[in-house]
């Protein structure tokens, strides 16, 4: 080639290369900016902890696991490091591949698998049964899959889980599904572009703080329950998970997180127990009193914050018995993650109690898990709350005694002072007064409290240190029948929050 031709060729080549480079960079940037962040957020800490070799337990399954087992609670109570790998709407085959994908990055000592949906008998998630919406299932699968880099294993998983090649393609090139998010980009999307993905701080779990007001509690079918009649896709993949774990030398435990089960679910559980027995592995049955479905469910099937805590505590106790896992609490290598996150988690719960936008029941629910703040709750006589069974159960659990039921039966005023233990480690002291009862010299962080019910619209609640402040009196809120406030260990109080009961709804009055 002549010198001039070479020069001309290069002069043409440079803009082409520049064009290609800028387009590629632009597309990479666009993919990162536009992708839905749920999956990255869910697994951000997983990759980090897996790299450091910190993961003792993988919690596998579906949304029941996501909302049912808290790795941070497990850390707080037993010092085990777990990651919640549950996927919304994940049938067993999706769980199997989730396990295989996760195994590329870590080697846990224990895998806990929830066996819900074992009876589902379809292979492809885009061609499910009549009950399941394929679009929703595929969308949910993105939560499980997007964070994992595209490699041979992921391709194999996609081929096994999705029949339609176009839908499969949307997992390989996520821009196909997410490019349309340009019109709903938020500050977080741009932050992720700048600073990378920040985990939710819950190690894969999600917390729900609602109360299922109409739980569909089904009757115990008793002897009607039999195992599933034949092998299903669910059972096939459960066996594959068990065999994979056993091949890898990983202890596997089957379970089913508590929820309102129907006959088909119970048959599936029965089958799972039989499979566990067949392979000689434990099946953890949650004790009957683990959760109270009247107040521990967010909605049908999903536990709320307290349900999660109680279920996690039960599982933790079982793990302590059944496994040789080591308590890492006190090990400084874990301080920056589990220890720190557990602290942040506690703060988030406290914030939930204090948040302006959260409803009364949500506050009563979150307050049960609040360990660093005191709480004062007052309910006036004539309150609609006295006929709200869920609210009464929540208060009973908050106080630790059934006194609130007496107040409700007598339609009397009720006061609860809940004082956290000085070391903030979970133990609490509670004082209650109802009817004509009063409280005197209650040692709280805000001072020594005194409570006297003078008349229906006038009650005294003050401290010996500052008798001029009556916490239960406010001209502007004289008609509000429910009021509460929190206080910190330093005696700092939050503003009193007022609610007016309207049937079993509670109107926040400012």
């Amino acid at each position: 080639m002549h010198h001039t031709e070479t020069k001309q060729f290069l002069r043409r080549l440079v803009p082409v290369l520049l064009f290609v480079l800028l387009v590629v960079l632009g597309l990479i940037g666009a993919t990162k900016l536009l992708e839905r962040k749920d999956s990255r957020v869910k697994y951000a800490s997983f990759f980090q902890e897996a790299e450091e070799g910190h993961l003792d337990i993988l919690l596998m399954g579906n949304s029941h696991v996501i909302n049912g087992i808290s790795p941070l609670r497990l850390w707080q109570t037993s010092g085990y490091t777990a990651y919640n790998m549950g996927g919304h709407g994940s049938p067993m085959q999706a769980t199997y591949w989730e396990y295989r994908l996760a195994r590329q990055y870590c080697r846990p000592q224990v895998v806990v698998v929830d066996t819900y949906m074992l009876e589902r008998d379809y292979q492809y998630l885009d061609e499910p049964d009549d009950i399941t919406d394929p679009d929703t299932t595929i969308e949910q699968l993105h939560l499980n899959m997007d964070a994992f880099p595209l490699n041979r294993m992921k391709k194999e998983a996609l081929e096994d889980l999705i029949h339609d090649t176009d839908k499969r393609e949307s997992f390989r090139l996520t821009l196909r599904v997410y490019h349309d998010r340009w019109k709903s980009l938020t500050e977080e999307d741009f932050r992720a572009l700048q600073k990378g993905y920040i985990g939710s701080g819950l190690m894969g779990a999600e917390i729900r703080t609602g109360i299922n007001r109409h739980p569909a509690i089904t009757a115990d079918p008793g002897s009607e329950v039999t195992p599933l009649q034949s092998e299903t896709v669910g059972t096939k993949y459960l066996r594959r998970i068990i065999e994979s774990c056993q091949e890898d030398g990983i202890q596997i435990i089957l379970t089913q997180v508590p929820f309102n089960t129907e006959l088909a679910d119970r048959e599936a559980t029965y089958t799972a127990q039989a499979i566990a027995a067949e392979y000689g592995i434990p099946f953890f049955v949650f004790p009957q009193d683990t959760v109270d479905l009247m107040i521990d469910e967010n909605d049908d099937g999903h536990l709320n914050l307290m349900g999660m805590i109680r279920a996690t505590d039960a599982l933790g106790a079982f793990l302590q018995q059944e496994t040789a896992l080591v308590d890492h609490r006190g090990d400084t290598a874990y301080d920056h993650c589990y220890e720190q996150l557990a602290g942040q988690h506690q703060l988030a719960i406290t914030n939930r109690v204090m948040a302006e936008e959260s409803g009364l029941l949500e506050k009563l629910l979150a307050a049960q898990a609040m360990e660093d703040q005191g709480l004062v709750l007052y309910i006036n006589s004539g309150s609609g709350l006295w006929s709200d069974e869920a609210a009464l159960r929540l208060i009973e659990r908050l106080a630790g005694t059934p006194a609130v039921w007496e107040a409700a039966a007598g339609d009397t005023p009720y006061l609860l002072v809940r004082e956290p233990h000085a070391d903030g480690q979970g133990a609490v002291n509670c004082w209650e007064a109802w009817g004509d009862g009063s409280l005197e010299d209650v040692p709280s962080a805000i001072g020594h409290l005194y409570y006297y019910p003078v008349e229906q619209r006038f009650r005294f609640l003050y401290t010996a240190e500052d008798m001029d402040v009556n916490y239960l009196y406010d001209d502007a809120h004289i008609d509000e029948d429910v009021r509460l406030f929190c206080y910190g260990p330093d005696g700092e109080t939050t503003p009193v929050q007022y609610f007016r009961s309207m049937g079993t709804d509670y109107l926040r009055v400012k």
Partner: protein
Amino acid sequence: MQFVSVAFLIFLPVAALCSAFAPVRLRPVVLLVLNLLFCASLGWENLPFLGLVILITYLSGRLLENGTHATRPVTASCTVLCVGLLVLHRLPFLTGAGGQSHVLSAILAPVGLSFYTLQALSYVYDVAAGRQETERHLIRYAAFVSFFPTLVSGPITRAGVFLPQLQSRPAVWNWDQIRCSILQLLYGYFLKLVVAERLTIIVDTVYRKPSHYGGLVVFIASLCYSMELYCDFAGYSIIAIAAARLVGVELPDNFNAPYLADSVSQFWHRWHISLSTWLKDYVYIPLGGNRRGKWRKYLNILLTFAVSGLWHGSGLTFLIWGLLHGVYQVLGALLQPLRDRLVEILGLRRESFSHRLYRVLTTFLLVDLAWVWFRAPDVSKALQILRQMTHFSPWELWDGSLYQLGLAPVEVWLLLPVLGLILVADHLQASKGDLSRVVLRQSAVFRLCVEVGAVLIIVICGIWGDGYVAGRFIYAGF
């Protein structure tokens, strides 16, 4: 393999390379193979129809060449055979209202039949009229009729333009040609994916239940349809022209800023130019054109537009649409003296911007009202939409009604600058010619920004991906 598909974006550069590096003698063969692959990718059932039309018209050409046969019987029988296929496909008792075949859908819905039939017939007519030499080389001729960029929806290309280009090495590997083609492709995809697909959502929403909306929204939806149709079909044509350029064939423009036309007749010189000129050359002029007196000319105009309407579909709405355009032109001609007198009395300057703007807007409005008939599934729906437009409801412009038409508010706002950009692009095209060359004359940094920006805008703001029915261009249905 639709134009809007990854498969096509892979096929096109491969086709370009094959065409560029094939020896001149083998170019027709290479092109034909590519054409047949493309056609087969749209469905194997398309191949017999394509083969049939090629054979009928090729043999007709050969018969006309020999001179042993009288011209008329050959062209007439060729026309009957080819148009017969078309008509059969559109007969009301065989097809549904929208021209979709019920009874014979499996065998009589070949892709692009209307377009390549007209293309092949134009060759026969030109040979019969002595304007075109007979093509003896069957493969070369087949490559012309089945040319993949124009197969589905045109532009309807004349043999005189196409065939000579097969006999020489393509000039396409000229650097500027490639860059022009890429820019054109980007503009075509932009029109289709970013604009037309978005406007479709508004139009479909309103046309489904026009009675649910006030006059302003229905009117805006009709404007949106005008733009949708333009962006969809012009986008298609631009992609086709760019694809043809990449395989070494230059095709004439099919659109030239039609909505900037200042009369209906000028609109038809700028809209779907290849069909308009086809109808002019092979329907209007043979009918006598303007050579047989004023009234006969008007009748010829009406007949030509009636044919145009029926070509688009068998429904009465298409006939009305075609006739409406004929009536616009006849009335325009009849009222010309009156309009001239009015201009004189009012002292208007014909070349002033305001007068030209008035003419452009009036033309656009007339064309827009005619499109209502083109889009509506039946006469009663068209009348309902036109009636609905008369309902006075200006508040819909600011009461949020425009955000209830299937698009997010930000998308509605996005359409404004985008439509403005198209207006500017059309103006540039009308005044300076090929738009891609206008961009190429700019600085390297500007060009790079335009090219990279266009790719990213199409990928991000385009409507594609899961749930998108790949590339069903409106004109592919005709």
